[in-house]
């Protein structure tokens, strides 16, 4: 047990001793000063009185010798006067003030000396009158008194020293009486911290002040100990339940994503098969439900990740304005479908910054899609401006203004909370998990920004967020990929899919089916599926592969251990085979775990075909997709640039958009054509407007212009309407043909 070392200056014992000692000395000194100064004053007064009386007496004795002008006699009297130690000399002046006799009277008086003057009177016999015949001047010195006082001071100092020493000894003795139990108490408290049992030291439990203090401490300690134990068990329980929750999310991630993976994967594959309209409609519904389910799962996982502070921001260069444009354009179809005017106002053409573009896009998408969802009529406008901040960064402020249902004032504070919508009935009407705004707010805050909302019920809302972004890259950002690049030089993607030999380690039958279909679709001819890690290792021993697709959770030997085993093989070719993780575990630490085991890349399930192709692109050269940005070509009937950028590599989304375009175009053209003969002006304009939006959603610009032409020609006769409708259909057919030719749309109707 280490006793706390108390600095001398703050020790109570030291401070008490010093203060009492100083106080004692102070009182003694003051007393001493008072006594000695009083003695000095009294003695000096006595001295003066004595001197005056001696001088008066002398002056009487001197009268006759002075009258007789007997200098010898005077001198003798003065000499005898000077014998007295209180005199420092004497002199007699005659009646004219001339020196008569001088007996050592000093020329100048020092501080200790003072003069006493006494007139010398004598009765002049001739005049029979008492008159002054001279003056006796005596010098009185305080030197003897001073010496006396000093001797008193000497004795006082000795006495005071003895008294102070006595006080010191008494003080130390009494302090020991108090401080010893305190020190014992301190030791006992230290022991208490270990044992949490009451103090039982008999020295400390006597019936005195310390005893009662210890008694109180024991009471408090017992109560604190109970509270501590209760709190600790509560804390342990909370931690345990938190761990259970985290595990639950993790498991749910895996459990939900595995079947979803196969549902979505299968629908993606199914989409290319011929179907009749009814099947197509049912299929689309299944596909859309699966996608919504995935979105909900993803939202829940995102919230879990953000709350567990497990989110890691990327740091990449990107054009923030382009993200805004792309987001707005990606939502055009929904806006058009609802007849909303969705637009943006940007301060300039581009804003090149560094940050996490996908999270930024996610924030935008959430806000804009919410705005579109909750707005029935009017417009949704996204405006943005960038202002330089003090630290050399820029603060990007984005406002999303809608003319929607608005948020009541009493709900505005909780709008960002989990599972909260302004009105629970809203969920039923507009859909959504209620997590979007929570994620949005959390992402904004993680990016160092803030978000707020202003709203007017029935008139609309304005969501505004600001985030700081770098305009020049930070030095510290490093990408921790390619840990094994020193041993495995990165392959150039020289292997064609048909030549590639791929080993798939996957235990789940539906996932196996999905992988099989996926690889076949991508043109991979040589692949083998292993049921688990052990089988995968055996397969790898038998043959060499260009790539391993590794599921992480497998029976017998999981993906991580399998990877470690592969990286431990003797054969350098086998040892250095690229391994790509495929797992439904979507937590960031899962990716880190995969990479730290020696895997080269990580693909989260459900697998998106485009992401799959991109992740595998370092090793296998899959057919190049239409790259981004795609230079718009004047002679093409459709400019897919915006759509592609909105899809951000999400082929499913792209296809869905195209499918939606085809379906909606057909419906809306039929309606427009039906209105040619007898439709009202308003209906014609509305139908043309709706079709224009549909055309715009995929960048079918010629078709869009034709629609705009139709919309701008109200009140024309049916023949003109028909001609325009024919032109629109003509433009649509060009687009449709292009999409089919490019393999972007397949229909069994064709």
């Amino acid at each position: 047990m280490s006793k706390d070392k108390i600095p001398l200056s703050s020790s109570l014992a030291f401070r008490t001793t010093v203060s009492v000692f100083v106080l004692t000395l102070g009182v003694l000194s003051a007393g001493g000063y008072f006594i000695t100064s009083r003695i000095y004053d009294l003695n000096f007064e006595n001295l003066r009185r004595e001197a005056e009386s001696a001088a008066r007496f002398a002056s009487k004795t001197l009268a006759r010798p002075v009258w007789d002008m007997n200098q010898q006699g005077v001198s003798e009297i003065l000499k005898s006067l000077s014998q007295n130690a209180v005199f420092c000399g004497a002199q007699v002046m005659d009646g004219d003030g001339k020196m008569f006799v001088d007996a050592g009277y000093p020329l100048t008086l020092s501080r200790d000396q003072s003069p006493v003057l006494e007139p010398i009177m004598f009765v002049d016999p001739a005049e029979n009158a008492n008159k002054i015949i001279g003056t006796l001047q005596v010098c009185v010195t305080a030197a003897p008194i001073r010496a006396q006082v000093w001797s008193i001071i000497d004795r006082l100092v000795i006495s005071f020293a003895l008294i102070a020493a006595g006080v010191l000894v008494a003080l130390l003795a009494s302090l020991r009486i108090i401080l010893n139990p305190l020190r014992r108490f301190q030791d006992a408290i230290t022991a208490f911290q270990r044992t949490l049992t009451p103090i039982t030291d008999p020295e400390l439990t006597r019936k005195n002040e310390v005893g009662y203090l210890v008694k109180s401490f024991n009471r408090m300690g017992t109560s604190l100990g109970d509270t501590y134990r209760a709190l600790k068990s509560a804390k342990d329980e909370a931690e345990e339940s938190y761990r259970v929750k985290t595990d639950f999310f993790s498991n749910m991630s895996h459990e939900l994503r595995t079947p979803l993976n196969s549902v979505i994967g299968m629908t993606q594959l199914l989409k290319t098969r011929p179907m009749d309209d009814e099947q197509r409609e049912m299929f689309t519904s299944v596909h859309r439900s699966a996608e919504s389910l995935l979105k909900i799962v993803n939202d829940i996982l995102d919230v879990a990740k953000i709350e567990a502070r497990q989110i890691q921001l990327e740091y990449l260069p990107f054009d923030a304005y382009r993200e805004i444009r792309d987001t707005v354009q990606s939502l055009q179809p929904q806006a058009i479908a609802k007849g909303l005017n969705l637009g943006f106002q940007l301060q300039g053409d581009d804003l090149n910054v560094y940050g996490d573009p996908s999270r930024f896009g996610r924030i935008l998408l959430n806000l804009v899609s919410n705005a579109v969802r909750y707005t029935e009529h009017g417009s949704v406008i996204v405006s943005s401006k960038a202002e330089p901040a003090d630290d050399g960064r820029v603060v990007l402020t984005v406002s999303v203004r809608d003319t929607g249902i608005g948020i009541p004032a009493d709900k505005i504070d909780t709008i960002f909370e989990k599972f909260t919508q302004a009105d629970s009935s809203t969920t039923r009407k507009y859909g959504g998990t209620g997590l979007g705004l929570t994620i949005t707010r959390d992402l904004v805050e993680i990016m160092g920004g803030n978000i707020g909302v202003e709203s007017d019920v029935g008139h609309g809302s304005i969501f505004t967020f600001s985030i700081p972004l770098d305009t020049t890259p930070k030095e510290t950002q490093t990408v921790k990929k390619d840990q094994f690049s020193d041993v495995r030089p990165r392959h150039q993607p020289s292997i064609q899919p048909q030549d590639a030999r791929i080993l798939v380690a996957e235990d789940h039958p539906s996932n196996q089916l999905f992988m099989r279909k996926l690889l076949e679709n991508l043109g991979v001819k040589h692949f083998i599926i292993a049921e688990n890690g052990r089988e995968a290792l055996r397969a790898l021993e038998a043959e060499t592969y260009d790539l391993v697709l590794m599921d992480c959770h497998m029976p017998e030997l999981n993906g991580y251990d399998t990877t470690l085993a592969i990286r431990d093989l003797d054969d350098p070719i086998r040892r250095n085979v690229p391994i790509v993780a495929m797992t439904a575990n979507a937590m960031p630490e899962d990716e880190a775990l995969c990479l730290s085991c020696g895997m080269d890349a990580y693909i989260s399930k459900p697998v998106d075909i485009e992401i799959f192709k991109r992740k595998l692109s370092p090793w296998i050269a899959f057919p190049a997709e239409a790259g981004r940005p795609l230079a718009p070509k004047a002679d093409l009937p459709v400019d897919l640039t915006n759509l592609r950028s909105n899809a951000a590599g999400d082929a499913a989304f792209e296809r869905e958009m195209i499918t939606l375009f085809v379906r909606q175009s057909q419906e809306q053209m039929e309606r427009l054509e039906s209105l040619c003969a007898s439709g009202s002006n308003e209906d014609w304009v509305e139908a043309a407007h709706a079709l224009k939006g549909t055309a715009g959603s995929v960048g079918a610009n010629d078709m869009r212009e034709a629609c705009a032409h139709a919309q701008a020609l109200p009140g024309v006769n049916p023949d003109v309407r028909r001609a325009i409708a024919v032109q629109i259909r003509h433009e649509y057919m060009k687009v449709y043909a292009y999409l089919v030719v490019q393999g972007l749309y397949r229909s069994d109707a064709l």
Partner: protein
Amino acid sequence: MRRFLLAALALIAMTAPARAQQGVVTLAGDEWCPYICKDAAKPGILVDIARLAFAKAGLKIDVKLMPWARAFKDARAGKYAGVIGVQQTLAGDLVFPEVAQAQSVVTFYVRKNSPWYFNATSDLPRVSLGTIVDYSYNPFLDDYILRNAHDMKRIQAVAGDQALASNVKKLIAGRIDATVETAAVMEHYLNSVDLRKAIVPAGRMPETQDLFIAFSPKDPKAKEYADLVAAETQQLILSGEMNALWARYTKAEMP
């Protein structure tokens, strides 16, 4: 005349034999220039006489100066061989030479221009007279002083070694109107302080008094010494050397 401690007259001296150094005779006296002086070169008329007298017998003298009363008393007691300048009248038991060695005249002195003059004792009450404590002048004057000792308008007696000087100063300062002193002594003093013109004589006592070198009755050679001194005195007077001796010390007329 001569001075006496009056109270001491009744005292009988203690027995203390003179322990004279071999060949040296120790004599006591007080300073009373020109009779006995401090000056070693001119030690005084009486001292010169004694030195000459004892030299005839092959003896040296050693003169001790001290207050008069002390000299007189100790000489009588035998502490000294003799005492210089004593009057025969009041010192009966001392051994005196048959011839007096000198004479003195008691004289009054006043400030110049003072109208007072002593003719008779009845003149005395008109002045404040400065005297010297314990001095004896003349039976009549001593009686007058004794009777008026507490009347400072008549008698102001001063004490101490400087008593003569004090009286002169008081006379000049007007604190007294007259003082009294042996003429030779006053003349000698006034000359030495250059006050001859300010202070003038104003009458004298009618009689002249003899002064002796007298010897202790306790000294066995007292008679022998007295005879030596008497013989020398006679010889000096007869040879006229006494006048020359006197003139060496004072311009005053030898009484």
